């Protein structure tokens, strides 16, 4: 780590009588999963580098309820939502950036009718904004000329129609961006959504993550780029399944930017 991460909680801001530009909703995977924590840190490094005044909820953050809702446990989902809304509204949060499309979808679409109204964006949309306004600049960097293919997360793409943000961010890497046949609206799921992440798959002829990573690996990429911690897990497993972990990296768009800038 080149420098210490500067992470301030909402509670600390409030104690100082200040309020941040934006709340960074880290999410459960981003907080606890060893691989996803690296994505969280990459996002923080970029925010620090761009001098974005952001806060986290820290120990006041709790699961949005997404996996419970997708699994049919509406009761647990709404309990989580009400708790989170109480905290978010208590801090008068206006704008949120999430590190995970599942958190994004839930906060953005399913909290408003329960009393939680915020402007919610995905971290690739924030990165797009920072690049567009010149708050971060990238010229080539370590991914120049590398072959990168982006796997659309279902909850960013089809669920919320965000297809351009991650791509427009990656254009700055001066890499060779390649599209899988099933991409954007037609992107194939990694297999983790709808609470599948937390259970064994049903009986079938193949694992979904194998099907998807096979498609990505057919392009002979150097990097499979993702925008979701769960996709990251699944695609990493898929790359391992084909014994390609030495030649193909699975990286979040935020990690690509942080590494390109050597943050």
């Amino acid at each position, binding site marked *: 780590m080149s420098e210490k991460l500067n992470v301030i909680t909402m509670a600390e801001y409030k104690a100082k009588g200040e309020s941040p530009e934006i709340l960074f909703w880290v999410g459960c995977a981003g907080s606890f999963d060893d691989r996803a924590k690296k994505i969280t840190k990459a996002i923080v490094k970029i925010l620090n580098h761009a001098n974005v005044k952001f806060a986290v909820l820290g120990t006041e953050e709790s699961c949005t309820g997404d996996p419970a809702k997708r699994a049919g446990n509406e009761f647990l989902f709404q309990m989580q939502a009400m708790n989170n809304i109480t905290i978010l509204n208590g801090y008068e949060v206006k704008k949120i950036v999430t590190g995970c499309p599942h958190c994004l979808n839930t906060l953005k679409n399913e909290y408003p009718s329960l009393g939680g109204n915020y402007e919610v964006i995905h971290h690739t949309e924030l990165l797009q904004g920072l690049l567009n306004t010149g708050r971060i600049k990238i010229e080539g960097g370590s991914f120049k000329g590398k072959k990168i293919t982006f796997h659309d997360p279902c909850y960013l793409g089809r669920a919320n129609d965000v297809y351009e943000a991650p791509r427009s961010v990656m254009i700055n890497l001066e890499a060779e961006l390649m599209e899988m046949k099933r991409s954007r609206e*037609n992107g194939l799921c990694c297999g983790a959504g709808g*609470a599948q992440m*937390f259970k064994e798959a049903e009986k079938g002829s193949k694992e979904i993550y194998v099907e998807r990573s096979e498609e990505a690996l057919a392009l002979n990429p150097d990097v499979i780029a993702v925008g979701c911690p769960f996709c990251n897990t699944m695609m990493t497993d898929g790359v391992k399944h084909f014994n390609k972990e030495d030649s193909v990296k699975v990286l979040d768009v935020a990690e690509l930017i942080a590494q390109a800038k050597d943050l």
Partner: protein
Amino acid sequence: MISSIIFILLLLGGGILFTINARKVRRNILLGKEINRKDNFPQRIKLMTLVSLGQRKMFERPIPAILHLFLYVAFVITQIELIEIICDGSLGSHRMFRPALGGFYTFMVSFIEILSVLAFIGTIAFLSRRNLLKVPRLVKNELNGWPKLDANLILLSEITLICFIFMMNGADEVLYSLHQSHAVDLNEGTLGLAISSHLGPFLFGGMSEHSLHIIERVGWWGHIGMVLWFLNYLPYSKHFHILLAFPNVFYSNLNPKGKFTNMDSVTNEVKAIFDPSFVPPVADPNIPMRFGAKEVTDLTWKQLLDSYTCTECGRCTSSCPANITGKLLSPRKIMMSTRDRLEEVGKNMDANGVFKDDGKSLLGDYITAEELWACTSCNACVQECPVNIDPLSIIIDMRRFIVMEQSAAPTELNGMFTNIENNGAPWQFGQADRLNWKNE
């Protein structure tokens, strides 16, 4: 005179029978729960124009889209000719629009003929795709039996209808050239129809006047007969999509696809926990309180309309990650099962006046938990559907019943629920450790 009476009786009979059966379908659909889909009228009209009328989503797959377009345009345009047939049949006239419309009439009927040829090609191609090429999505297990027969019957009926059109027009062309047609003779020697002026002499040239009149009449009566048969076949067939596609797209879900409904019944309970002074609205005691969907009547009318609109094309299933990887789930089968169960409930009501418990339900007898738990909620099926059917919403509603009413979620998911309840995360990590990453 007698033929006019027979014609009018046939027309009335066909119309009344269709109305009776269509009303039954409507009644079945309205067994569903209320959901507001009447907002944003202009946006809905626009969507219907683009997606139903304009077939926009069909063109994601260009080859079937073009073939389908031939049939679709031919079907729509042929309705103009049908108006003339109805007038002629009722009044005993023959090609009554021709004298008044003149050249435009020739153009119109010629246009219909050219489209009919294209539709003929399309139909043959569709039959081949199903029965010879065996396109994977068109030969999956859920299509065995009636669905496969239904599909072939529709295509064969379309071919028959087209043949009748050319019998009618072809024989009339030959008769006209012999000055024996019942059409007003304008002394041009030909009716000038783009296809039949060539096809007619080729097929029927040299036949006796008597035979030609018989062929012409068989074609004419066959045409209207097929139309009435088709109309009355619709309520029993997946082909109902030709009518329901329009309202179904009009009443589409306009929200982002990722947005699932928040159940009001649950919100009332949760609010009561958070605020003891909260008084939930009084529930209608006539509606049984149930979380999620076990039966078709637990679904909304839109979900039931979806099931009748489905024409079993299988684009949803062919894009479903679970189905692609050999799991039991097929979004198309979810829609077919919903419709089949709803039909069964409807027949039960017809027989008994009101629904009499038959010991069956949508969940279990038609759709199994294994299918439901294979879904990744990726929305590929919803994205694919050319008429905006939403199989995912049914899957989620049924999961809700399994979890909240039966407490029968897969064991691992129960573990995940417990973790969220206790630690605020789906894994066994304490909430107090949530910011540890900062210093690691």
